[in-house]
């Protein structure tokens, strides 16, 4: 590769592709205003302003406004879902939004506003006036104005929302758009009487961090604290206080340093959640000090050599992933790489290796012998098995274009063809009926007898919860 030429090409490509992207003058003015200590014009609310809003919330008028917003936000979400972000709305919907915001006192009445609300403006002028009002309100570019942006002008940044606001949003707005909360995401709750107080959770998290990291006692005294309260799909009986402590950086590390800690809201004890990727402070220290074994290094080197055989496939974007290796390479994985994985696991590297490699390492892969039915024949049987068992149409099954295939010889006398059916890219996923989208299919066929050994459906994401469930992907 001609380094100089390609250096230039990358810069030129990014410049050309993102040339439309400039920081808006409105945003620049916000930054300069904040920097000069003036009251921010819009958008980013200072801590003082957030506190003012919280205090306001106790007043009857403000409470009414919040309730009004909660009511109207659902209507706005419906329009967003039907028409897209604000910029794409029809003028009538934009006028209705302005009317709501005027009622709530977020937009001041003026001559232009009156004309807009009275329907005295042409369609073009109505768009123009409404757009200007929303840009001024949110401080965003018009194409980015959305329900979230508008709500942030009322509630402050999403990072500062209260537990009640988070739970309300998820239940009323998020679930309005999506059928369910993803399995690896938090289910936000309002703390109930069984929960320890927020401050107790913060104090517990601070102390655990001080102990684990051996920090001076006053280390978090000036920390910026945010919290969330949630449960997860894994076990809804466990409720978590999530405490995020952020402290100023140092000259060498000028950013804030974030510490995210979970506290069991019922026992008041420090805990962790692997699905969310949040360890305890002690585990975090262990991770910081962890040094992989030489076996792990050998595993990584062997893996890189194998992956380097694969050119990226820009069309279907199946870049170097194990699932798309050839049957021969999967067999080589079982023969040469799995022993290295096993050695590394014995030396304490299981966590570093992760389920993604531990799961396929629990099977032995091979290539079909002459006695086995062919992959094409097996796939035909698998297709038919799904159609017969689940009663979906061939057209629907045809959208499952991402079929991962394995030849499993863990039991040499009963080798299995295994097929995992998924979609390829967002287009085929979007084309599926909504009730079909969460579903994957798995079929296993005896390669000697053509018998269907297993045929079942799986819900996307459920596989990642444990090693045993992860194995169903392979």
């Amino acid at each position, binding site marked *: 590769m001609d380094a100089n030429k*390609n250096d230039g090409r990358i*810069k030129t490509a990014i410049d050309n592709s993102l*040339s439309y992207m400039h920081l808006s003058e409105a945003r*620049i003015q916000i930054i*300069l205003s904040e920097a000069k200590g003036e009251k921010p014009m819009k958008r980013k609310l200072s801590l003082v302003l957030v506190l003012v809003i919280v205090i306001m919330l106790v007043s009857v008028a403000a409470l009414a406004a919040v309730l009004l917003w909660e009511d109207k936000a659902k209507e706005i979400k419906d329009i967003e879902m039907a028409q897209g972000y604000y910029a794409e709305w029809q003028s009538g919907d934009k006028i209705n939004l302005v009317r709501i915001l005027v009622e709530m006192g977020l937009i001041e009445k003026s001559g232009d506003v009156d004309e807009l609300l009275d329907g005295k403006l042409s369609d073009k002028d109505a768009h123009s006036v409404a757009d200007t009002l929303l840009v001024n309100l949110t401080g965003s570019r018009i194409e980015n104005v959305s329900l979230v942006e508008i709500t942030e002008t009322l509630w402050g940044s999403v990072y500062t929302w209260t537990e009640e606001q988070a739970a309300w949003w998820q239940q009323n707005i998020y679930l309005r758009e999506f059928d369910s909360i993803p399995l690896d995401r938090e289910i936000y709750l309002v703390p109930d009487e069984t929960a320890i107080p927020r401050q107790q959770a913060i104090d517990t998290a601070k102390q655990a961090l001080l102990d684990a990291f051996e920090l001076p006692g006053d280390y978090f005294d000036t920390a910026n604290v945010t919290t969330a309260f949630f449960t997860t799909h894994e076990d809804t009986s466990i409720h978590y206080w999530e405490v995020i402590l952020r402290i100023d950086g140092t000259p060498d590390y*000028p950013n804030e340093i974030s510490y995210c800690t979970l506290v069991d809201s019922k026992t008041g004890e420090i805990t962790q959640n692997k699905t969310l990727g949040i360890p305890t402070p002690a585990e975090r220290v262990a991770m910081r000090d962890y040094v992989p074994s030489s076996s792990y290094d050998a595993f990584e080197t062997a893996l890189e050599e194998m992956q380097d055989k694969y050119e990226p496939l820009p069309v279907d974007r199946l870049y170097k992933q194990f699932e798309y290796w050839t049957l021969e390479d999967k067999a080589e994985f079982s023969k040469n790489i799995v022993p290295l994985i096993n050695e590394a696991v014995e030396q304490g590297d299981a966590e570093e290796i992760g389920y993604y490699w531990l799961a396929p390492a629990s099977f032995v892969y091979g290539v079909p012998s002459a006695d086995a039915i062919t992959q094409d024949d097996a796939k035909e049987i698998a297709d038919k098995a799904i159609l017969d068992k689940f009663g979906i149409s061939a057209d629907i099954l045809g959208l499952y274009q991402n079929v991962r295939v394995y030849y499993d010889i863990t039991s040499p006398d009963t080798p299995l063809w295994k097929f995992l059916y998924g979609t390829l890219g967002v287009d085929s996923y979007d084309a599926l009926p909504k009730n079909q989208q969460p579903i994957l299919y798995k079929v296993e066929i005896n390669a000697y007898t053509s018998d269907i050994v297993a045929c079942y459906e799986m819900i996307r994401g459920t596989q990642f919860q444990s090693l045993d469930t992860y194995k169903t992907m392979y």
Partner: protein
Amino acid sequence: MLSGMDKDEQVEIWVRRYSDGLLRVCYVYLRDVGLAEDAVQDTFMKAYRKIDEQERYGGAYEKTWLMRIAINTCKDYLRWSWFRYVDRRKEIERLEAAADASPEDSLITLEIMRLPFKLKEVIMLYYYQEMTLREIASALGVSISAVAKRLNKAKDALKHMLSDEGGVVE
């Protein structure tokens, strides 16, 4: 104060000089213009608060320093659970591109955005921000050899689409 300027003047110069570059880097991380603007805004506010430290850090390296703040701000955005909760990132395939960008330009940019996080950031800093290995190492808080290793990996990952003739390999 820096070079006899007051802090406000210094921030204004930074905003005018670096905001677009920072915005594009943040966009590649966050895949959302609004979030990228937030990140740039936060970057300048953090920079403002630490302007005196920057002078001690070495005023000549202000771009590296700002980039370091911006990158870590983006990483914080990605890490915070709130971000997971109100996730406004777009699918890579649905990102906007400038109307006058060629398909090849768009493809290269998209391929860069698809790279793993650690590779994407060195590509952006080395090729796009034209920072030296030493500057990148300083911005990311890693060794120069680690940067060089990541850069080589990133080049390997990209070479499939950048042929010696400068065309796109299909």
